[in-house]
């Protein structure tokens, strides 16, 4: 437990080599989709980046504060439906809808945090699980408002700065997500390296000791959960307008979806933030690329999760010292 935080927060020296490596990876992210100019490659990049980001946000809760949200897909649904319904019923501009999705999910996260104050670990996982499920079933039970299992058709983003956001212009969506992701990652990176981030880690390691040092554990738990939920809601909103159709099926917003994000976080390495991005590209990239293989590709998720729990408890981040 103590080691993976040490690895994550240890030495971040701005050596020239490190700057070059980061620049090279960023250049790959920026250059590959437009150069490949292949809609399939771009979709794979969008999925991988989106799930990598969700994994990183999940890691902000799990890896930095020891909070596990097993109803995560329900929180994604809140963001996605929040933005989509704001457009559908009230004609709210989808760009602004991202913030609405974020705000609604933040409120949900705050309220869930408030009712979960007394519990942690497995019990928090179970509590959030039933919150997520209640939300998903509520969406499917109100077809008059959400169209339920019939599926809600969502508009694409409106054109902005002369750039067309029709869904055939996948590159516009990719670069929007990349920009959004850069902002989110930098914000989380700053947060975990600030005093607040130190408090999160202290909370994860030993809640009682943290409180005895005069830090208000409840306050930091709520803060972490609310921020992570807000960011989840924003990505959820993007997901809605990118995908174009939402339905509250289990695959979309139920257990399988939560497990996908959770696996990315565990495989990426808890408490590493960036590891999730790598895991996102590795797992989702692999999954999308080998769609022809059918269910065998999903077997990989289960096997990897078991391997990480048993043998490689720091995930991809554990490889850092060999390759970084």
């Amino acid at each position: 437990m103590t080691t993976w935080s040490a690895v994550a927060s240890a030495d971040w020296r701005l050596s020239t080599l490190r700057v070059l490596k980061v620049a090279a990876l960023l250049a790959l992210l920026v250059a590959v989709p437009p150069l490949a100019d292949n809609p399939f490659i771009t979709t794979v990049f969008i999925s991988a980046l989106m799930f990598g980001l969700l994994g990183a946000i999940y890691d902000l809760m799990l890896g930095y504060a020891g909070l596990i949200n097993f109803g995560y897909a329900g929180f994604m649904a809140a963001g996605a439906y929040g933005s989509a319904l704001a457009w559908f019923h009230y004609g709210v501009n989808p760009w602004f809808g991202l913030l609405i999705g974020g705000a609604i999910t933040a409120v949900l996260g705050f309220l869930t945090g408030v009712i979960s104050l007394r519990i942690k670990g497995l019990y928090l996982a179970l509590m959030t699980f039933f919150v997520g499920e209640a939300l998903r079933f509520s969406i499917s039970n109100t077809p008059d408002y959400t169209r339920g299992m019939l599926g809600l058709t969502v508009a694409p983003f409106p054109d902005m700065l002369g750039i067309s956001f029709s869904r055939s212009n996948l590159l516009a969506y990719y670069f929007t997500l990349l920009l959004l992701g850069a902002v989110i990652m930098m914000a989380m990176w700053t947060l975990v390296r600030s005093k607040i981030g130190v408090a999160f880690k202290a909370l994860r390691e030993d809640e009682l000791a943290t409180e005895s040092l005069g830090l208000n554990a409840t306050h930091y738990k709520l803060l972490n959960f609310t921020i992570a939920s807000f960011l989840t809601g924003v990505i959820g909103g993007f997901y809605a307008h990118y995908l174009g159709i939402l339905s509250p099926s289990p695959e979309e917003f139920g257990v399988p979806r939560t497990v996908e994000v959770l696996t990315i976080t565990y495989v990426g390495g808890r408490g590493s933030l960036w590891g999730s991005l790598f895991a996102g590209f590795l797992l989702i990239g692999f999954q999308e690329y080998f769609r022809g293989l059918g269910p065998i590709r999903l077997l990989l998720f289960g096997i990897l999760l078991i391997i990480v729990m048993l043998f490689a408890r720091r995930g991809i981040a554990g490889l850092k010292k060999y390759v970084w």
Partner: protein
Amino acid sequence: MDLAMYTDPSVLTEILLQGLVRGSMYALMASGLSLIFGILGVNNFAHGELFMIGSYTMFFIVATLQLPFVAGLVAAALVLFLVGMLIERGLIEQLRKRAGRDWLLDSFVLTIGLMILLQNLALVVFGSNRLGIPEMVSGSLIIGSIIISYERLIILAVAALTVLLLWAFIRFTAPGKAIRATAQNPEAALALGIDTMRVHTYTFGLGAALAGLSGALLISIFPAYPTVGLQPIVKSVAVVILGGLGYVPGAIVAGLLLGVIEAFAYFTMSAGWQNVLTAALVVLIMIFRPYGLFSSAKGERP
């Protein structure tokens, strides 16, 4: 809806009976989950997949080999007993050597991995077809205006018998005593010469066998397909929380209670809201009584 219907005794009896049948399925499934949690501290999320293996076993014994239903039930329990012991030795015990104070969460996540693995393995091996058996027996018992199918009555009887046998096993046999001792105080049990590692293994086997038996017994309602376990696992986790994590008698009572509550909910609410009601109930219980409705014997703080 007509208000008089709610006070009609025959309607109430029928709902109550339907609820008890539904509840007995929940109790059977959840007692295994609760037993495993109580002894090993593992909230086995792959329990639904053990249920799934049970329904496949039932299908092959009864539909493919044309053997009687009883053979299918016994085979499912035996197969899952072995599978369960294998899982405990191969995975859970391996994790126990490595995980520290985060055991509860880490073992939970490990079983999530197992869940995905088993689901997709089933998809690769059996495909996504639903393999069902129409019903074990046809016909219904009719008393006055109360109608209940023989099929459901058999389910109720087998579930009740199994729970009774489970209770007798834990209460009166030597291995049962070892299970109780391990649940009360693992270190003391070990010091008194009880092989707690073995207790872990056969307890997991026993819990898995109960899941397999549920899957086999309910095949006319839940046909065998790879993700059939999702619904039963959600219900049994709910029941286990309501009854108090790790407290088997609590799970049985809570299972019956939830069955009756849902039966009334199906009668009074529009379709689909029962799931929301169940989830809301669990959330409320976790807020106000985190140890469950019936205080856990272990009295462990969540």
